[in-house]
């Protein structure tokens, strides 16, 4: 176990090499500090096409901060984030989103006073100008896609309900419905299943598996180990901004030292 801590991510290259798809997003030596607190400490990580990577780590490990840097909500102090070979550092959030990187938020950030239907539809409208390209045909296509997404997420009956009036689980699924409406190649999901009951997260896992089968690349921050085991191809373990391990779920989750860090027992 000490070897893991000493060598960090390099300890599990054989496991990671099992997935040799195209590297869509490559993070290299990323650093970010808030004052004296280092929240991302020399992190390097690859997200490969069609792979589900789960970021695991105790609270304050820097998982969401990593997402915020990938999506342009925060600018890293140093290091590189490359999307299919091109740097995204310094680009605006909306430009990064349009490149094909979509995210959800831990606190959902739904468009609360818009209906469920509008929440999904607005994500699908590509331009910021007054009219969308493609005319009536494109508009009808968008409406059909919205209905299809709402059916799959179990929100069809609530299409005309305002987001703020939904129950908690429905709000979670609306957050998923919004990201499903994007044409993104990578989804960054920030605790998408937290607070869901068993039947809801089974539905969530089904949804995610269906999308992954289509070739989607997913990176999830999740604390629910059932979900982590149920969906992950790879797990990256972060603690205090540092990537401690990156490999197959079996290997990472069974590591007693990482478990000790995760569950707060430093004496193991």
């Amino acid at each position, binding site marked *: 176990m000490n070897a893991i801590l000493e060598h960090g991510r390099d300890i599990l290259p054989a496991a990671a090499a099992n997935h040799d798809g195209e590297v869509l997003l490559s993070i290299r030596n990323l650093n970010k500090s808030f004052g004296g607190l280092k929240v991302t400490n020399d992190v390097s990580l690859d997200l490969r096409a069609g792979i589900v990577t789960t970021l695991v780590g105790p609270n304050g490990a820097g998982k969401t901060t990593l997402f915020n840097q990938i999506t342009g909500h925060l600018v890293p102090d140093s290091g590189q984030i490359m999307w299919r070979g091109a740097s995204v550092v310094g680009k605006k959030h909306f430009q990064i989103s349009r490149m094909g990187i979509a995210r959800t938020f831990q606190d959902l950030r739904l468009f609360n006073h818009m209906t469920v239907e509008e929440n999904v539809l607005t994500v699908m409208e590509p331009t910021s100008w007054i009219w969308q390209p493609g005319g009536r045909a494109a508009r009808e296509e968008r409406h059909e896609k919205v209905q299809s997404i709402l059916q799959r997420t179990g929100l069809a009956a609530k299409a005309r309900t305002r987001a*703020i009036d939904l129950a908690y689980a429905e709000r979670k699924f609306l957050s998923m419905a919004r990201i499903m409406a994007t044409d993104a190649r990578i989804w960054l999901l920030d605790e998408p299943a937290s607070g869901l009951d068993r039947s809801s997260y089974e539905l969530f896992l089904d949804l995610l598996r269906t999308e992954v089968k289509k070739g989607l690349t997913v990176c999830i921050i999740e604390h629910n180990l059932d979900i982590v085991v149920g969906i992950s191809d790879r797990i990256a373990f972060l603690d205090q901004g540092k990537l401690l391990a990156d490999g197959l779920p079996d290997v990472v989750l069974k590591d007693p030292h990482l478990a000790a860090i995760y569950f707060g027992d430093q004496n193991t």
Partner: protein
Amino acid sequence: MLAYILNLATLICINAVLAITLNFIMGYAGIFSIAHAIFFGVGAYTAAYVALHASASIFLVIPVAMLVAGALSLVLALPALRVRGEYFVAASLGLQVLGVTVFSEWKSVTGGLGGMIGIPPADIFGFAVTDPVQFLLLAICCLIPVLLITSVLLRSSFGRNLKAIRDSESAAHAFGKNVAIIKTMSVVISAMLAAVAGALYAFYMGFINVESFMLDTSVLLMAMVIIGGTGTLLGPIVGTVLLMLLPGIFSYMTFLPQTEIGSIQQIAYGLAMVLLMIYRPGGIVGSGKPRITKEKAA
């Protein structure tokens, strides 16, 4: 009596245009501007200047007023892109003060504190609109397109973009919305349509000065929107009618001391606002539920 009613109806139409355009940015884009009277003023001064020095044709005056107000609105758009919430309110207050200073000091164009007098009546294909009934029809003919334009825009993808930004700017960013462009366009559209009201006002009054474009006008417009229902299509019109009718209603209440009508009116406005915010925060037309703003209620 008829003249009084026509005058009131015309002023209601003009103020309704202003309330609708303020609601466009306040209710849908979440830009709480207290500088709306400035765009009203820019429209009025531009219209007066063009009418006095070039032509009083509404087909020239109104487009020019709209263009000038639209261009100057970029001054408001700039802080709107950088600051939010109470910080933007403070920035727009600064713009309001700045605008009033320019109106009262740029004597060669605005006439200074004395204002601009002798503005000719509106001209439509060589026909001067001098009759109050005709002017009311003209005001209605301006109000309807403004209402239609804002209504169509708000039902379009642009309206959804505005509402998305209002509800969660960071989520809008994350889903590829160019927030800077959308906010700028909303401010420009709002200012251009407010200038239509300014042009109508200049023609209607035949005289304008800075008194009509002060902070209290901006605050009154905001009250019209809030009382009627922020973020609703009909709310600003209902709010305008109510606030414009109140002074008249009070003056017919003979048991009230007529010399104190102004103060009573202010007390009534204040009370109405407080009670409305407690019992019906969405306004008269809006939802009775309180609006939880921005990125709350996750």
